[in-house]
């Protein structure tokens, strides 16, 4: 289980596993920083020790040689660190871009944090608490939110972390490179049992994952969303015929929407979520702000189901205007 690139002979682990495509990228930058930092620390420490011995006060060295300074040296030790810093900066930025730019074909999972558990929703219908099953060798995008306070989705062996915020979606993604069970932690302090908000990410070979995914699946979120859409009466306004008082949702997802009073917004998960909870915030051009809020009437899981239902309405492509 342990594959520690640093000091592998120690009887206890000092380095996390490299179990995602991100992990080696993060670690290579770490090695660069460790190398330069160790060099600097040793240099400073050696100089201090050497000077303290060589120039200690003793007979024959009662007075110092007074040196005011040196502009050349000052420029040297301003510019040199700056160059090294900029290398670290650019390198760090490139890893960050990689870590926060999920590939478009990533497998999507919803994650909801609440005091003190993680709830995950697969699109095929599987739900999990504190465990997250994922396939090896495929990018997984986790769309995160929180039901109460701020939590943080942290998988050390993947080098992945993203806060889960109440009231909005954030996203994390990773691609596991080896099968295994990895720690999932909540990294943002969230109250009394913060340290019990832990679970596992179980990375499985694709075939095993498919099998797992098929077992025990009930309704998919989109199917549950369709039912909820009717139960909440959404379909009385959001319809394609002339009685529609709200925008037709077919083919909506991922499109640009023109808003009342100018402005354009992309109809993504965050926009749909906002429109359910705060409908007056961004009203589609040509419609009245008559929709009531569903805040408090529908849970975070329900919102996920509704979003997935709206997404599933992509099929019937309508002719353009």
């Amino acid at each position: 289980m342990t594959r520690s690139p640093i000091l592998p002979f120690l009887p206890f682990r000092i380095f996390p596993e490299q179990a995602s495509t991100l992990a080696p990228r993060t670690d290579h930058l770490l090695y660069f920083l460790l190398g330069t930092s160790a060099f600097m620390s040793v240099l400073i420490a050696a100089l201090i020790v050497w000077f303290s011995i060589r120039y200690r006060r003793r007979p024959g060295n009662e007075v110092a040689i007074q040196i005011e300074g040196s502009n050349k040296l000052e420029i040297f030790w301003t510019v040199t660190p700056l160059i090294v810093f900029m290398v670290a900066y650019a390198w760090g930025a490139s890893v960050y871009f990689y870590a926060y730019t999920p590939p478009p074909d990533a497998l999507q999972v919803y994650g909801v944090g609440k005091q003190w558990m993680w709830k995950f929703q697969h699109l095929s219908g599987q739900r999990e608490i504190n465990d997250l099953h994922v396939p090896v060798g495929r990018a997984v995008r986790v769309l995160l939110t929180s039901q109460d306070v701020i939590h943080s989705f942290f998988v050390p062996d993947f080098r992945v972390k993203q806060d889960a915020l109440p009231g909005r979606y954030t996203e994390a993604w990773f691609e596991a490179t080896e099968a295994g069970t990895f720690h999932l932690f909540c990294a943002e302090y969230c109250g009394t049992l913060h340290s019990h908000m832990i679970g596992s990410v179980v990375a499985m070979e694709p075939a095993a994952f498919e099998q797992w995914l098929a077992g025990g699946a009930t309704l998919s979120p989109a199917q549950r969303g369709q039912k909820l859409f009717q139960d909440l009466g959404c379909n009385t306004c959001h319809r394609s015929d002339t009685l529609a008082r709200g925008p037709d949702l077919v083919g909506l997802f991922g499109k640009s929407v023109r808003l009342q009073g100018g402005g354009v917004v992309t109809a993504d998960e965050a926009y749909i979520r906002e429109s359910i909870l705060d409908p007056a915030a961004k009203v589609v051009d040509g419609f009245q702000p008559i929709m009531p809020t569903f805040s408090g009437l529908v849970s975070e899981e329900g919102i996920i189901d509704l979003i997935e239902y709206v997404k599933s309405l992509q099929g019937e492509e309508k002719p353009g205007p």
Partner: protein
Amino acid sequence: MTAAPVIIAPEVEENYLNVRYGVRSWLLTKDHKRIALLYLMAITGAFFVGGFFALGVRLELLTPAGDLLRAETFNKFFSMHGIIMVFFFLIPSIPTVLGNFLLPLMIGARDVAFPRLNLASWYIYMIGAGFLSYTIVAGGVDTGWTFYTPFSTIYSTTNVITAALGIFIVGFSSILTGLNFIVTTHKMRAPGLTWFRLPLFVWSLYATSIIQVLATPVLGITMALVGLERTLRVGIFDPSLGGDPVLFQHLFWFYSHPAVYIMILPGMGVVSELVPTFARKRIFGYTYVAYASVAIAFLGFLVWGHHIFVAGQSMYASLVFSMLSYLVAVPSAIKVFNWTATLYKGSIRLTTPMLYALGFIGLFTMGGLTGLFLAALGIDIHVQDTYFIVAHFHYIMVGGMVMAYLGGMHFWWPKISGRMYPEAWGRMSAIIIFLGFNLTFFPQFVLGYLGMPRRYWSYPDEFQVLNVLSTAGASILGVGYLLPMTYLLWSLRYGAHAPANPWQATGLEWQIPSPPPEHNFERTPVVTRPPYDYPGPEESRG
């Protein structure tokens, strides 16, 4: 407060300690030196209370299971530890004790510009400390020192309001001290004491004061908003009321990142005094060290966003904050190089204060370098909110700031108390603290990269070895801190009488008796020479 008579031997001439007696003469004093001692007692109390909570945290973490304290209690312990140490010890420590005592002495003044305001600042501090003490007695607060919303505003059931009020109030003490120091530095300098003849400690206090005046109001506003949201549900931070929880983090770190420099800049100032004194040498690159303080104060305002790289901040904002965070590291690096270069061809004595100063340089270097890890966006994703962060800021604040504070306390102790401390005990304690500190916090870097999140009451078994090392180090560190506390008190009665200038230092504070007379200087000194004007066989340019 009534320790004053103990210090006085009959043959000693009149000084600020023996000129008046009694509790009233202390509680109503306008003498900056006596106010410094009032602060010294207050923040020493805060340090040991904060240390008690740290002890509880480290003992709980000795074993993976949450067994010694209950989860609620553990959360309160680390919260109280952070709140007390940051707001009631680290931020006031050097400015209010050493700064208050030394600023007028170093610039040849009789007192600070506003002596009454100075005393008022202490009372404001004590009122804030009163609210915090009430908070502790009433059961504590469990939000962490960071008060993140909406946990602090809606979900926590502990004493958030009184804790926030204590911080709100103590902030005014900080603002007024900063204001006092800025005016004092501008208006009260002795004739001939131009800006570039000022001791570097004064430069660093000046830079610190600017941050205190400009940044602290934002903290006050933020704490007030937390209180308002908790009581009146105003909906600033809670998304269910239409607020934005990340807004709190922006506001909080807009103060609290500059606050890191409030804590470290005065420490850098102390080290800039100690190194030249014990190398008997002018500081290398005086103007660069001086301007580096100002650059840090300025750039320190522009990096708050590096605390929220994984909190849902825009990727492009993170790019800017990361770059600026690297820039702020440059002036710190400049200081380290200049201190090191000052040792070259010096005449070095490894006294207790010098050991602390050299320890500071080493630990601050490590703290600063690990800051570069955190400024790297890709690394920060992984180590944010882990023990790596905890180790990093303890290297800066404890390894850096507390080492400098203790170095300064030993250096100026003869001036403050009129007594010498026992040198052998001093050196031994400095070494114990250095070793204990590293054993406590170095394993935490490893622990953090391994993945242990901070603020965990229980943890998986694989983290135990490193936690045991850390707790072992903390117990050594605890002993290390009790030693100076003990022998410095001992020296008040039994220490040798201090001469005016036991270190043959050049500062104006050393040209008057130890302890100083009530009004510092009999005649206002006229300054004709640069600082650190130590003798040398010949002048030379490097």
